[in-house]
């Protein structure tokens, strides 16, 4: 296969690359082919969502890797830049969209888009390294991408299962209706927290390892001879950091609103822990997240073998090995310190939350999910286009309105400016075509006769 691919003309190779990029990209959910993902996830039951995120997206990644790296054996640097760009845009838009979601599963689905973007960043970097004849770093980038894919399937499954548990316990996935679940569902809440820590790439959790290797390979990009790659790759570290930062905000919102504070609805208040089997499943995944996060060596080695198989390259460079040795020490250090710090303190009593001296707080006074994400939404308002309406109902007194209704519908400008016109054009054309199917059979017959005549004319000239 590889030999056949090597002898193919460049045009064909490019064709295959672009095809597999778009084809697998659609399946993986890279922007701008991501639209189906957040629509499909909320419909599916939680285990299916988990499986979809974990396996289906990964088969797409696998397919792309297989085609681009194994079958085609890499290509010119611009392939890599295309993939990098796609990854950067996908990651950023994915997490920005996730930030504004209040439906837990939609949020997680958009976060899948983001993670696919991160994986594509690694794949793009690997392609650039390969085109620049730096197989060692290509291996690092590819291992990073594969590792992140693996990690993503772990923590995203965990989170989707957690979402399923919450749906079971509270019958809703709208986080504006939740709150205080950690107290009511201790195991679910704890493992969900581990999932959140993993997904935003905190050290000692598995998400960090993949991202670290990505960062490392981006920094190594500065050693490449080409000016362009030496600028673009390190800048991608900034993109990745921005994605990570927003992801932290996003999952702080998700966890903080859904699991912490006071319940925002009766259902959330009455929530109880889910079945033990479900807890066990989640706990297993959470354990995997932590183990890989602290001892990344156990997955790094097999993945390196795999990547070397794909790229036919030497082992990982020395420069990336220390992380595997450092993380356990860091873990130990943090653990000892945290235990020590926790040991100093003795919680004496619980008191009502301070309410500025007013009567007791209620759940409606808490920060809502929409409010939490508001500052970031405002900063990135160019990406979102919200249709806002505020209806204020006054009685007699002008300063004490009876009710204020605030409605905000988010449509993303990306969808508006790129897809809307395209979709409108397609639908317009389709509607016009639709009129050709008049229902009148005589017109149909006319079409056939016209086709014959047109072809006879064509035949004369062909």
């Amino acid at each position: 296969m590889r030999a056949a691919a090597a002898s193919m003309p460049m045009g064909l190779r490019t064709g295959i690359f672009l095809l597999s990029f778009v084809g697998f990209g659609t399946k993986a959910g890279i922007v701008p082919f991501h639209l189906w993902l957040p629509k499909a996830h909320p419909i599916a039951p939680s285990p299916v969502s988990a499986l979809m995120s974990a396996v289906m997206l990964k088969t797409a990644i696998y397919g792309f890797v297989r085609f681009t790296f194994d079958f085609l054996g890499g290509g010119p640097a611009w392939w890599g830049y295309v993939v990098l760009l796609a990854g950067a845009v996908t990651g950023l838009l994915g997490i920005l969209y996730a930030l504004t979601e209040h439906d837990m599963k939609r949020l997680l689905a958009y976060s899948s888009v983001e993670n696919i973007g991160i994986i594509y960043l690694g794949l793009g970097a690997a392609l650039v390294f390969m085109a620049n004849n730096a197989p060692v770093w290509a291996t690092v980038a590819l291992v990073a991408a594969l590792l992140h894919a693996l990690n993503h399937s772990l923590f995203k499954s965990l989170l989707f299962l957690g979402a399923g548990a919450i749906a079971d316990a509270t019958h809703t996935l709208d986080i504006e209706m939740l709150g205080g679940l950690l107290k009511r569902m201790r195991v679910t809440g704890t493992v969900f927290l581990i999932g959140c820590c993993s997904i935003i790439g905190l050290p000692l959790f598995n998400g960090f390892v993949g991202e670290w290797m990505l960062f490392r390979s981006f920094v190594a990009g500065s050693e490449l001879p080409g000016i362009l790659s030496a600028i673009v790759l390190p800048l991608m570290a900034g993109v990745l950091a921005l994605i990570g930062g927003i992801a932290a905000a996003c999952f702080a919102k998700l966890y903080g609103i859904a699991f912490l504070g006071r319940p925002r609805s009766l259902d959330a208040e009455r929530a109880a822990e889910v079945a033990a089997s479900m807890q066990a499943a989640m706990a297993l995944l959470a354990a995997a997240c932590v183990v890989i996060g602290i001892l990344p060596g156990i997955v790094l080695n097999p993945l390196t073998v795999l990547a070397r198989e794909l790229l036919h390259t030497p082992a990982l460079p020395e420069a990336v090995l220390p992380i595997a040795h450092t993380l356990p020490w860091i873990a130990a250090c943090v653990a000892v310190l945290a235990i020590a710090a926790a040991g100093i303190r003795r919680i004496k009593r619980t008191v009502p939350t301070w309410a500025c001296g007013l009567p007791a707080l209620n759940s409606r006074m808490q920060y809502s999910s929409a409010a939490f994400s508001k500052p970031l939404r405002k900063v990135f308002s160019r990406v979102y286009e919200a249709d806002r309406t505020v209806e204020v109902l006054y009685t007699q007194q002008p300063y004490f309105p009876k009710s204020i209704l605030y409605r905000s519908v988010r449509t993303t400008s990306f969808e508006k400016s790129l897809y809307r016109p395209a979709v409108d054009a397609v639908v317009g054309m389709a509607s016009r075509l639709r009129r050709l199917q008049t229902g009148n059979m005589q017109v149909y017959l006319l079409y056939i006769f016209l086709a014959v005549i047109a072809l006879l004319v064509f035949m004369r000239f062909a």
Partner: protein
Amino acid sequence: MGLIEIAAAKALASSAVFLFFTLLVMAAAKRISTCIVMFSVQSAIMAAEILAVAYANKSAEAYTIAALVIVVKVLAIPYLLFRIVRNLKASQDVASSTTGAQSVFIMVGLILLSFFAVAPYARTLRVDEDMLAASIALLLAGAFLMVSRKKALMQVIGLLILENGILLAALTTIFGMPLVIEIGIFFDLLMGVFLMGLFVFRIRDTFEHLDVSKLRRLRG
């Protein structure tokens, strides 16, 4: 040359004109029964032609085909169609979307067009120009009738005329195809007309009219 030969030669030479005549009558016709009669006549002319060819070539196959044409197209199908018309007890109007004069003019135009179209082929294929033109004219005329007449039965008749054109084309160029195939085609045709007749009844029963231009529930 005996009388029969002279008659045969005459028939061959002028049959195209007769065929054109039947087409013009159909174009002008307002009643379905006229069209059915004209179709029968048209088929009879073709049968005569085939008989002439058969006689000239002493071909048993051609005789069989002529017999088939007489049985199926001159007698059976017109009979079937008449029965349908009678049983339908509906208006006999062909419901043309063009006026009579327009239809005739268009028909004349189609006939001229077919002469114009076959000119180059007639020479290379070494066949009689007006017969080939007639076959194309029949094709076009059938198509025209199907498109312009709104009654379901007229679609059937148009299709039959179209079919006649194809048959004529085959006859004038290569004296028809192998016998088994011809028989198969005739059988298919008969079944087709029978089925269409069945559907005409169903249309009348379910829609209570026979105007196919109003069958427009399914579209888009």
